[in-house]
């Protein structure tokens, strides 16, 4: 009986520790669903960036760098864009958070959001630059900027949902 509990306990642990990775993959799928609602559909938020940032800040142990790489790869493969730029953007966002992880330890929600604005700006600008270089064309940065605005506007909602989920898990 006790052993069985141990197995369940371990399974539970595994499920919890891989959930950030799978939740972020799920976000990528979610951003692919056609909404058919507005003409603004081209500007979908960079949901994977939100996932990677959030978990890198709150549970860096559950969002290792190879997971970030895989998430970036899946994102670039599924969106149909150039392979690579999106991965680099996510890796850099993760690296920035890990580099400043002491700062995030005591940061309030609003401060983390402000930090996300900076990190997302760097990540999306880098993705844009690398995509332009890889495609040897000039992509209008206005649409990237709009995507950035939508992404930082969506962040609090998703982060709130993640935090709720985390509390449920930890109970």
């Amino acid at each position, binding site marked *: 009986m006790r052993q069985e509990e141990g197995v369940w306990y371990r399974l539970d642990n595994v499920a919890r520790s891989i959930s950030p990775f799978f939740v972020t993959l799920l976000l990528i799928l979610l951003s692919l669903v*056609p909404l058919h*609602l507005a003409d603004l559909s081209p500007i*979908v938020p960079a949901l994977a960036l939100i996932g990677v940032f959030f978990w890198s800040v709150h549970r860096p142990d559950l969002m290792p760098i190879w997971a*970030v790489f895989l998430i970036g790869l899946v994102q670039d493969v599924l969106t149909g864009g150039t*392979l690579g*730029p999106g991965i680099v953007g996510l890796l850099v966002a993760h*690296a920035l958070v890990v580099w400043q992880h002491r700062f995030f330890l005591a940061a309030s929600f609003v401060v983390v959001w402000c930090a996300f604005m900076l990190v997302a700006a760097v990540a999306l600008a880098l993705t844009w630059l690398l*995509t332009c270089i890889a495609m040897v064309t000039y*992509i209008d940065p206005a649409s990237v900027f709009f995507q950035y605005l939508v992404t930082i506007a969506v962040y609090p909602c998703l982060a709130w949902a993640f935090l709720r989920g985390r509390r449920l898990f930890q109970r």
Partner: protein
Amino acid sequence: MNKPASSEIRIASPVKAWASRFALLLLVGAAFGLMLIGRSNTFIVEETRSAVTDMVAPILDAVSQPVETFSGVIEQAEALANLRSENLALKDQNARLMKWQGIARQLEAENANLRQFNNMVPDPTITYVTARVVGDPGGAFVRTVLINAGERDGVEKGEAAITSKGLAGRISEVGKRSARVLLLTDINSRVPVVVGDGRDRAILAGDNSNAPGLLYLGPTAKVRIGDYVSTSGQGGVFPPGLPIGVVSGVTEKGVRVKPFVDWAHMEVLRIADYEMIGIADFEEQVSAARAAVAAGDAPGAAQAAAQETAQGDAH
């Protein structure tokens, strides 16, 4: 369960920091490597893409259906609100269209007569595959959609994706049960077109905005706002005469075209197989010049277009 993990991190942090820095460099390097592979060997990348897309397509298919129903309900509510004004507008349009129907019937009969008269070769038969749009990546960098039909449904690379309003794009990748459509507005899309009554030739080039531009328009071409843009059939990818859109802006910077397709409500696409003979040559040209352009159709199409123009002039 979290506490031991954080204390472990504290003890091993110098080692971990080193390892993570190394891992960062390694993985960023790998990403750049992928970028190079994507540029030089499009075949492998395409195969991987369609394999992954195939895995995801059934999930997207299932998820997108309730979303579609929901947006359908909203649309119906909107339609209900505008019922009266829409009815008036439709009556007006119906009257105008009846007139055009008469003209079209007359022209159809006349056309059939003339074709018979000239022993003209009949147009090839067209087969359609109808597929639902299950994925729309959006974002700032691409304009593509995923559809829930692939190789097993008879979809092939290069075929035209059309809606009831006009051309939407062409198939760029095919998996077993899913395919990716490169939309007219994508930065990699190049479509040979004719513009206006003067039938001036040009290339419709997407730039990820909603209104693609016209390239290589002749210096003598007179283009006005409202001019009709349709495929020219050059390059052998699309048949001539597929409706695309109207000229929406003429400025010093260039000519903009507003496609007929309603991108926000594109729920179903018809994939048309026109049995274009040019596709085989086109594919060869693309593989020969694969490094030139990411989608690789600009030089291929232009080259083939030039060839066909020469042939056309000879006739």
